[in-house]
């Protein structure tokens, strides 16, 4: 072990900043990072053991003990549940002979839940030893587990590959693209370098001006004007500037980065190059969620090709610009999509969002001015540079120019990715996706807004309903509060970094209260409590996760109040929610006594 760990440490130059890669490397080698390995790493990086453990224990996919020769991570997003996850989970438990959250006695198979893996359009889906399995049925599970028992290699269990580049020799995934609608900006042909040649012929400041003139706004959700962000970064005092491309894509129901990276990786990388040129950086980092590790070898090969064509590296296209890109793999943490948490993670730390100010454009990666942009934002930049700002602003709505990739999933015939112009009505999306009998639409993922039919005339854009791209359609057959809201709250409980007192404390309390209501013990005061506590979450927390974690409850109380009113007791003002008879049932049975209540 000592040798293995030391080789990995050496590979990353015994650099603490690369702790994520080191842990990943050790885990790939040993299957886990146990006490001995942690000690060796601490020694090699000259840091304390608990500091190594701090990073390790933060991330869902890192572990200090074996999770089985075959490790199954079954997505537990709300849409996965809608598509039959519980049957698949039961089949895994039955066939493997162990419960979720544990490993079989012989150490062969480990079963674990995991938050949305970006496959909402082909659920139920699981990641097994890094490979994605989609559209699972209990029948498939039988075969899968039998194959594991016979010692097969996981990649051999994939029988057919998905469309497009999913069948590329370096990806070989059964994932389907499900591109349902292409626009003329992003999901359209692209000749490598056509945006950057234009950029490299200008002064960096001119590039920023063009992006400003396009009114492009960030596609990660917050909609901050991209040109302005770059300008702030240029004006910050630092030694070097950095570009970080956000491909964490953790918001349940989002999977558009999956498409961009599978089919248009050069476009994303080119956007990073243009951003790098504009802010005069020398290095860009693409932060890739571990769930998309199945694309890593392919993406590295694309980068290699770009280096060979002198689109990256020294003196790019003879214009005297030096720039390269590295890919930083995450390890399972939604909060690492938050820009400052992403930076912490790139520095090898636990993904805890930073206090602001300073903002990343002032002090970001390595305390240097940094631009963090969503992959779709950067991809759009390439087309803006190629075709001009005016061409771009002809698309979209007044305050939201251009096109947007929507990830549509849930109760509809055609789940997948749609490139639409901003300003489209929700109703039109439902029509395109083949969704009738719709109870609600969750716009912008769990942190967004849940709307009912009365609001389907509203439009998707920053001035009305903003979204990072997640559109989840919830049919009338669903129990909105139980199947959706409760699932979303569990997601936030699982994904909070835990730093802020309200964010780590209130969601579990709110969940209990919601369950009390669902169990028929709710009263009016419970709904009021939920509203008040939710308001405090918005006020008091540091980052967007905590500030929006109560949204599933708040937006359904606002837009579907009748569903709560149906559930609560109207005959009383108070119900403790405590069932004494049930609480003493076990002990009564044990001593053979009838409860006398």
């Amino acid at each position, binding site marked *: 072990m000592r040798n293995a760990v030391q080789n990995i440490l050496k590979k990353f130059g015994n650099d603490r900043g690369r702790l994520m890669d080191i842990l990943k490397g050790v885990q790939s080698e040993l299957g886990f990072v146990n006490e001995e390995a942690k000690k060796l790493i601490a020694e090699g990086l000259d*840091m304390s053991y*608990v500091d190594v453990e701090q990073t390790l224990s933060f991330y869902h996919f890192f572990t200090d003990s074996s999770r089985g020769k075959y490790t199954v991570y079954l997505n537990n997003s709300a849409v996965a549940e809608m598509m039959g996850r519980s049957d698949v989970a039961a089949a895994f438990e039955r066939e493997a002979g162990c419960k979720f959250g544990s490993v079989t006695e012989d150490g062969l198979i480990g079963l674990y839940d995991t938050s949305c893996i970006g496959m909402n359009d082909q659920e139920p889906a699981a990641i097994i030893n890094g490979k994605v399995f989609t559209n699972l049925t209990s029948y498939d599970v039988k075969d899968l587990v039998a194959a594991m028992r016979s010692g097969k290699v996981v990649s051999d269990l994939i029988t057919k590959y998905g469309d497009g580049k999913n069948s590329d020799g370096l990806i070989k995934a059964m994932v389907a693209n499900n591109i349902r609608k292409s626009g003329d900006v992003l999901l359209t042909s692209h000749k490598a370098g056509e945006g950057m040649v234009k950029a490299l012929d200008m002064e960096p400041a001119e590039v920023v001006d063009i992006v400003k003139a396009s009114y492009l706004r960030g596609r990660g959700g917050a909609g901050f004007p991209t040109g302005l962000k770059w300008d702030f970064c240029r004006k910050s005092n630092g030694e070097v500037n950095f570009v970080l491309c956000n491909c964490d894509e953790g918001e349940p129901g989002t999977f558009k980065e999956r498409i961009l990276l599978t089919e248009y990786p050069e476009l994303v990388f080119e956007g990073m190059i243009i951003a790098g040129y504009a802010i005069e950086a020398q290095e860009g980092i693409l932060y890739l969620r571990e769930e998309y590790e199945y694309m890593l070898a392919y993406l590295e090969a694309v980068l290699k090709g770009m280096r060979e064509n002198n689109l990256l590296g020294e003196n790019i296209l003879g214009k005297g610009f030096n720039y390269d890109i590295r890919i930083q793999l995450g390890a399972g943490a939604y909060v690492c999509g938050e820009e400052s948490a992403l930076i912490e993670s790139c520095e090898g730390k636990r993904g805890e969002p930073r206090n602001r*100010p300073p903002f990343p454009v002032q002090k970001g990666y390595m305390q240097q001015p940094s631009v963090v942009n969503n992959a779709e934002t950067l991809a759009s930049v390439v087309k803006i540079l190629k075709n001009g700002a005016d061409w771009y602003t002809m698309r979209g709505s007044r305050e939201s120019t251009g096109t947007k990739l929507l990830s549509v999933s849930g109760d509809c015939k055609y789940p997948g990715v749609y490139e639409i112009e901003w300003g489209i009505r929700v109703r039109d999306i439902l029509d395109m996706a083949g969704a009738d009998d719709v109870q609600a639409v969750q716009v912008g993922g769990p942190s967004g807004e849940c709307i009912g039919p009365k609001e389907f005339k509203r439009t998707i854009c920053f001035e009305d309903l903003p979204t990072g791209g997640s559109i989840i359609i919830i049919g009338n057959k669903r129990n909105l509060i139980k199947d959706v809201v409760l699932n979303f709250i569990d997601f936030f409980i699982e994904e909070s970094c*835990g730093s*802020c007192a309200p964010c780590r404390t209130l969601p579990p309390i709110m969940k209990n209260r919601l369950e009390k209501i669902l169990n028929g013990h709710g009263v009016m005061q419970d709904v009021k409590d939920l509203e008040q506590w939710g308001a*405090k979450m918005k006020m008091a927390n540091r980052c967007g996760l905590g500030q929006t974690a109560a949204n599933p409850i708040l937006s359904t109380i606002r837009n579907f109040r009748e569903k709560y009113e149906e559930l609560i007791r109207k005959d009383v003002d108070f119900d403790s929610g405590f069932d004494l008879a049930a609480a003493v049932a076990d002990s009564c049975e044990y001593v053979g006594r009838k409860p006398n209540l």
Partner: protein
Amino acid sequence: MAEKIKFTIDGKECYAEQGQTILAAALDNGVYIPSLCYLKDLIPAGSCRICNVKVSGRFMTACTTPVNDGMEVENNTPELEELRKSIVEMLFVSGNHFCPACEKSGNCELQALAYKYQMMVPRFPYIFPEKEVDPSSPKLFIERNRCILCKRCIRSIKDESGKSLFAFKKRGNKLMINLDHELAATMTDEMAEEAMEICPVGSILRKEKGFDQPIGHRKFDKQAIGSDIKSVI
């Protein structure tokens, strides 16, 4: 001397050094902004969220936000005091705090804030989480039932080469404080004493020493928290 910045807290005129945080400047101006994770001279954590103030309609933590010229800070308002009180209550229900049996009672900042906010009983249901006590180092007990995860120990207790003795482990509602056993074995009595001192609650306790100050004679038994911060004018 560098030019001072002028700003106000609840209308009161205050002065700050360039780059000073709202909380530090408030203390210099004799204004108390309740806080728990803040400790002078440490990098602010912004994690307990109690020092939330309002500036231009937005909530921000006073311990992390630098003062700007002309800033108008709301501090002692019913809305903010209610928010702070509820955070204190959250901290009570998310741990297991049995004050009468705690070595830190009377010197505990969490308890003192509960007194300040006249908390009789938290308005949130108790969670009664299971927490593990770590008694394994020679000089300290880590009583996680009382830890409020303020990071003061993480930020301040380091060995001479700068390595942290304390760190977080896990995340979310499973987040916990973790003491490095190897480094803890090398702790001097002074370091152990300092660790206990900086912990705002009774989560870091010295071994073989305790209750040397009788209850009733301790810091907050005699004066309310924040009452020593007097207006300098």
